């Protein structure tokens, strides 16, 4: 027996050892070659980094707003906490992959540890586990390990993805709320963390509120329903906790109803899909005379919305297809390992077989809450918005695996199953790590806007010598100005004074384009016109700066060509004296 006769202190050591092991495993998988995989930093990552840099230097964001709670970004508004969390690292290390990604990687590495502690707490409330602490420890450790090794979670921990930070804050908050003997301090701490999670990612504003509602129902609501108000002893504690949450979270909740929040909701909500031109166009191309037949339109819309929901639990998406956005997934992989289908199936069996109490329903509800923010938006399928799903899935997975292994009658068979399954899992994990670290970083480099960094490093000593520096704006590379100011660590005060912006509205979304900054111009390069410029430096793609045209321009000099890791040319730096 693992715990027979172990005294309290020794048990504490065991918990500590498991927590450290989980943390070390998580950190190793999330930090190793952090500057090389993914191959480059995206505009979104750099937006966080430069705003943190600007806050650290001047106390204002890139728009000159003093300590804002909502950061105006390219086409929407970004949440504040990731910006503030990145201030120490970017001030200390400058803007580079380590300073930008390390905070997220470290914070995310805490989640498997929190999952371990949370499953321990919840396992104590489940009749099938309550009697054996050994089984609870195993279930909690397996759940933590599933999350630590999860490709879905690892992917979004290796980059400044706000979603991953939000997951950690929410899980930490739920842990403090669900502790066995949670007093007022624990509840307040939990509510504080949940309140802060509302500032880490837009989607967390939806699932955090749902989770708090579920927690209230599971802890107090059912008791009031069954035994009446008089039996509820912790009303004071709950009221104080809710007040703390209300105070911390109210600006975030209010932001949902003001212009910025409303703009985001109307532009991305599934309800706007019904009347959107995109939907009409899709119906048209599908051969439906949508303007004539509202019945078919209704039926097709209902089909689309249902499929959108169901996609989040579709085996194809979980194990085979992954996210349609290239940078969100690894080539030829789903969100989970194919072998994970085994423990997903065990979850189904476990849920069907056990006598369920409110905590089983709580975990199942948590999965639905996790997919909620993604499923109500009109995007086809979104692995970041639904990242929270992986936490309850791994928690149930740990419980289900131990429940199933315990059913094996023979000790020898049990050991063999554990040995074979563990070995296979480790091999699959190695397969993924090799694929992610070397294949993904090379093949998906372009989707991570690879190449601009090299270009900026090259022009850094040169750009002051030219009257104009024209930076091309290929669609895949979004807003190149953020790359320029970040890699050159442009003085934020000077940036705010010199920047030239073009603001407009497109399909109900407020768009801001930076068109110029001192001698920088951010626009498309059109060589037949631009070839006549003088004292100009061009940074463009091979399409905008074709070699055959450059060779015919007498005073144009190709200073450098930048290649993707796969050997395909991606940028050309050309000077006209």
């Amino acid at each position, binding site marked *: 027996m693992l715990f027979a006769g172990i005294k309290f202190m020794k048990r504490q050591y065991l918990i500590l050892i498991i927590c450290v092991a989980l943390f070390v495993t998580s950190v190793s998988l999330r930090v190793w070659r952090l500057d090389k995989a993914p191959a480059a930093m995206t505009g979104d990552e750099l937006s966080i980094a430069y705003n943190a840099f600007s806050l650290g230097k001047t106390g204002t964001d890139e728009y000159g707003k003093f300590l804002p709670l909502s950061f105006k970004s390219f086409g929407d508004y970004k949440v504040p906490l990731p910006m503030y969390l990145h201030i120490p690292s970017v001030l200390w290390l400058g803007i580079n992959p380590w300073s930008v990604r390390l905070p997220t990687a470290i914070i995310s590495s805490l989640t498997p540890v929190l999952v371990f502690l949370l499953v321990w707490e919840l396992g104590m409330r489940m009749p099938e586990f309550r009697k054996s602490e050994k089984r609870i420890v195993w279930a909690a450790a397996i759940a933590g390990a599933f999350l630590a090794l999860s490709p879905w979670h690892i992917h979004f921990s290796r980059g400044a993805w706000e979603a991953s930070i939000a997951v950690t804050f929410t899980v930490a908050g739920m842990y403090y709320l669900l502790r066995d003997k949670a007093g007022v301090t624990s509840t307040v701490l939990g509510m504080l963390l949940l309140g802060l999670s509302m500032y880490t990612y837009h989607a967390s504003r939806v699932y955090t509120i749902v989770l708090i509602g579920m927690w209230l129902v599971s802890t107090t609501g059912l008791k009031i329903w069954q035994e009446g108000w008089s039996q509820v002893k912790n009303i004071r504690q709950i009221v104080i906790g809710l007040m703390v949450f209300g105070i911390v979270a109210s600006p975030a909740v209010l932001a949902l109803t003001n212009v910025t929040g409303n703009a985001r909701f109307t532009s991305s909500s599934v309800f706007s899909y019904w009347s959107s031109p995109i939907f009409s166009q899709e119906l048209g191309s599908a051969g439906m005379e949508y303007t004539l037949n509202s019945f078919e339109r209704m039926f097709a819309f209902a089909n689309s919305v249902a499929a959108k929901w169901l996609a989040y639990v579709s085996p194809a998406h979980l194990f085979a297809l992954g996210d349609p956005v290239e940078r969100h997934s690894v080539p030829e992989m789903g969100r989970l390992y*194919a072998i994970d289908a085994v423990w997903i199936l065990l979850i189904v069996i476990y849920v069907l077989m056990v006598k369920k109490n409110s905590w089983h329903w709580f975990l199942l509800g948590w999965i639905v809450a996790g997919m909620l923010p993604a499923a109500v938006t009109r995007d086809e399928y979104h692995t970041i918005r639904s990242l929270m799903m992986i936490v309850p899935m791994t928690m149930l997975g740990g419980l289900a695996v131990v429940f199933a292994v315990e059913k094996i009658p023979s000790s020898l068979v049990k050991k063999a199953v554990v040995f074979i399954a563990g070995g296979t899992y480790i091999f699959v994990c190695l397969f993924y790590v090799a694929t992610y670290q070397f294949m993904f970083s090379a093949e998906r480099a372009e989707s991570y806007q690879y190449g601009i960094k090299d270009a900026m490093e090259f022009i850094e000593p040169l750009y002051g010598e030219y009257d104009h520096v024209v930076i091309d704006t290929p669609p895949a590379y979004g807003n190149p100005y953020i790359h320029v100011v970040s890699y050159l660590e442009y003085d934020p005060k000077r940036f705010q004074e010199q920047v030239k912006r073009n603001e407009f509205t497109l399909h109900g979304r407020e768009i801001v384009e930076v068109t110029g900054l001192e001698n920088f111009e951010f626009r498309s390069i059109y060589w037949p016109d631009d070839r006549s410029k003088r004292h100009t430096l061009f940074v463009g793609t091979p399409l905008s700066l074709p070699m055959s045209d450059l060779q015919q321009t007498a005073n144009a000099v190709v200073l450098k060509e930048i290649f993707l890791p796969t050997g395909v040319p991606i940028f050309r730096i050309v000077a006209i004296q």
Partner: protein
Amino acid sequence: MRIDVQDVGKGLLLSGALVLVVLLGLQVAPPPGFASHEAVLGWQAEIHHWLESPSPGYSFMITLLAGHLENPIVRTRLPAVLAGMLMPLITAFLCKEIFGGWRAAVVAGGVMALNPWFIQLSRAAFPQTLALMWGGLCLWSLLRKKTILGMVFLCLALVTDVRALVVLPLVAGSLLWFTDGKMKSWVGVGMAVLVAGWIMRDIMWEFYWKESFFLEIGFVNRINEMRGYLLNQGWGAAAPLLFNKATVGLYYILRRIFAPWDWYWWFTASRYPQNLFIKHLGNFYFVEWPFFMIGLFSVVGYLCTVGKKYVLNVEWLWLLVWIGISSLPMALRLRPDLHMDFYWVLPIWCMLVGLGVSTFMDKLSLIKYGSWIAMTMVVFILLGGIALQTGFRRNSFQALAFKQWNFGYEQVADLLAPLPRDRDYFITDALGGNPEAELSLLLPNLKPEQIHWGSIRWNEINYLMPRMLVASPKEIPGGYLDACTLKPQIPCPESVQTVYYPDSSIAVYVIRWD
């Protein structure tokens, strides 16, 4: 034998209801054209070369069932349409045999009869529907312990669809395994597989080996690419261990087994835009999904608590095996076609929806408004059937799908039919597909040796100088038909007739020089 009158009454009621639903399904308009794969099946039946057909079983059934019919299109499609009418009934009887209740059976049959995927594949000459019917009859016979009958149906299914050769022996074999089949049943299955395998050997070789992704050069290259990334980083020793044919191959197969379980494809078909099918209406109706899951969980739940909740038999476990096997034809192929390769999942889907509705109705007393929910589901499925019909009938869909269906051969055949047969024709493949099979079938008196098939360049007309040319506007230089002044000099045509596509664009010109 005692006949249960109540049971017979229910059976009659079921049959009547299903006939009505099948009639509703039959209202769906036929495809806008006559596809070349249909023509090939019809032509092989016409010349009695059944073994050279891509589906020997289907071509043979055309000869057997419809050899006397005059219209070649109706003749070719008849076996699939008949199978489409019978399959809902067979599904219902199969479901009744497995789950033991008429309620589940009626729903399963109804779901099958109105299923968009099924309707679309049974309105044209797709051998898959016929194979599905033979397969259903085979499994029903095996469940009823009618082994010899089962073997006959098994053999018919296997020679009808090459996908059945992988799926059906495994499904039938697992059924025998779970139901403790006798030695003679095993021998029967083995013999049927051997006979069908011998008849289908060339087709199997082509389908599963030559088109297997394992043989594709890209697969081997991909493994080398994967290894290359590791070698570049100094991980040479780990490269062959992690990335080799076994690991990557197994990984690919596993991914392909999961790939068809994509709800987008099931309910909207948006990931696989093929004009053969109507986008956004999907292959199933989404309202069926919760009942499918209830049915599936009922099966899993039963297996987890054998003997406690349900008094049913071990065939339930067999259903799960069938679900797993359905993806196999897809998993083995280089370029899988979901609509064709995954078709064997359809009866399972319908039966589990039936079981789900039945289980749901059993628990109605526990659920508020349960009967309303069940009624809503039925209404939605019926509305879905109507949506499917109206969608198919829309001019815009017909106009969009015509090229997929090789629209135009029928019209060309009508133009050619009254003309003399003693001239040389040149017919290009402008309408796509296989013009030889299409026109040979549609024009029974055509002498193949008089016809030149294939693509053409205008310069070749000069020395071939056929009496007639059927070609697309792209193949005939602009200006020739108006002024015939083009070099090289070719005489002006005696007559030019035009075949239009449903969207009013020109499909082909039929040009005659006499």
